[in-house]
């Protein structure tokens, strides 16, 4: 089993060979055990017929039924989806038009502005946003969350799209102008289709970040809007129910689907036949 792990390239000294082929795979296996042990326990307890974490009693799917019957959860999910989709659309629209319509020089110079949100802890962003909204007396709610999540999203969308855009064959854009297309036509019919893999990948990333975001939501949601992470946090805080485990299991299935989709897009993007 261990010999299947080692590649044939970097092998030679026998003393190191035993290290590379036995110790390292075992360490990696332990790491994966560490990574997945809590998740397995979590899934296991979602089928536990016992309201508390007091050991295993018997198998049940009761918590799944209770979860689907919970109106609060569905409302939180709906809010989260609305906020996530709006943030994705906004950050992609703003981001791609910045990349294309800004002059090359100014885009390159302004790029550093967009790393600011990645360089500080999210709680600092949240405090800043809360100060801004309370200073101008903006009522907290879904709109303030969309503003915050779009800010987070731009930090990922703009570097990814810019990286892809400068890799594009510029003669395609020039050809479009030469053939009489306006800048707007070029943007919609040439640049956006060429950027599509990067747009989908970064959109997916923003979607997940928004759906997963807790800190900004915790500060800027106010009392009127509850997102899915806020709902989960509230349930955990006030004596958790195995309903949360059931929800986690379902979300885990969805996120594995997303990871597969993401890696599939990545392969499609890079695996162009030569």
């Amino acid at each position, binding site marked *: 089993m261990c010999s*299947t*792990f*080692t*590649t044939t*390239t*970097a092998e030679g*000294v026998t*003393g*190191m060979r035993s290290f*590379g082929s036995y110790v*390292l795979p075992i*360490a*990696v296996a332990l*790491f994966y055990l560490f*990574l997945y*042990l*809590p998740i397995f*326990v979590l899934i296991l*307890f979602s089928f536990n017929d016992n309201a*508390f974490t007091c*050991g295993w009693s018997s198998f049940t799917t009761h918590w799944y039924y209770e979860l689907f019957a919970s109106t609060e959860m569905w409302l939180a999910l709906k809010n989260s989806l609305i906020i996530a989709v709006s943030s994705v659309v906004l950050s992609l629209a703003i981001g791609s*038009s*910045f990349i294309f*319509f800004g*002059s090359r020089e*100014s885009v390159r110079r302004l790029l550093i*502005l*967009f790393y*600011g*949100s990645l360089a*500080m802890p*999210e*709680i*600092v962003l949240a*405090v*800043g*946003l809360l*100060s*801004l909204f*309370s200073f101008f007396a903006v009522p907290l709610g879904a709109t303030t969350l969309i503003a915050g999540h779009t*800010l987070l999203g731009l930090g990922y969308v*703009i570097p990814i799209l810019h990286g892809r855009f400068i890799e594009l064959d510029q003669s395609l854009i020039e050809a479009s102008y030469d053939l009489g297309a306006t*800048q*707007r036509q070029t943007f919609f019919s040439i640049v956006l289709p060429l950027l599509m893999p990067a747009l989908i990948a970064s959109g997916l990333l923003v979607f997940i970040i928004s*759906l*997963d975001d*807790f*800190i900004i939501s*915790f*500060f800027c949601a106010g009392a009127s809007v509850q997102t899915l*992470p806020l709902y*989960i*946090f509230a349930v*955990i805080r006030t004596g*958790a129910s195995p309903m949360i485990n059931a929800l*986690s299991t379902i979300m*885990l299935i969805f996120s594995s689907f997303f*990871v597969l989709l*993401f*890696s599939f897009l990545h392969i499609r993007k890079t695996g162009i036949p030569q």
Partner: protein
Amino acid sequence: MKIKENINNFITENASFIFSVPAVLWQLLFLYVPFFLVVYTSVKKISAVAGFDITFDYYQAILSSPYFYIIARSLIIALGVTVLCLICAYPVAYFLALKVNRRWKNGLLFLLTLPFWTNFLIQIYSWVFVLDYNGLINMLLLKLGIIQEPLHMINNTGAIFLVMLYYYLPFMIMPLYSILEKIQHDLIEASMDLGATHWQTLRRITIPLSMSGVKTGVLLVFVPAFGEFVIPAVIGGAHHMFVGSLISHYFLVARDNQLGAAFTIVSGLVLLVCVLLFNWLCAVPLQQLQQKE
């Protein structure tokens, strides 16, 4: 004709330039303006009748209070988590990038990225089931007869540390993996051909070449770990104050925005100094290397 075309191009280009403005405006309005507002809140004298008076009372309150001790503790814990993450992550990233064969690689990478995409509250909360009074570890140890009484493993700094390590490990592995994967096998083979042992190759070739990945990974772990607030809240009960917990306490519970703003800025500055120091430390060996050559 050419000139006229150029002028036309210039006009359309500058007219459409406005489409690139929203992104910059968004960033300024929601990131940089708030930053100045926080600074403003932290120095504004609240009793002033009219206009704007500067006061440093809030900073004094922060510096003279035991709250400064919280910054120091967060710093030590974040540093510990970062170092331990690096030690645990490097072998895994090394294995995934250079040792494992293609058949296993994609599966292992998939398993590595999956928790990344999972809701992080759930990831953290799953540890409750492992560490709890009636959790997995206590259950197993009791069944095996190693202990008679359940161990108390949750609601302490050790548990917070463990869960932080768990949560941040993938953030360290990813940049290390992507940089190690780009290292050319020729360089490693050349080193071996020239008689270096595996250890020498690792120390002289692989590790120096992966330094930029180490740098990214350290920043990706250290910066959020310093401001951590959710993990202590879920795992540690209410007794373990961290920088993040205290900030949220000031703003959301105590509603003391002035003190909160001053505390945010002081801890932000501490973080900035740490990051700059780290950058400087990374640059020193590089310069020495260049001087040697």
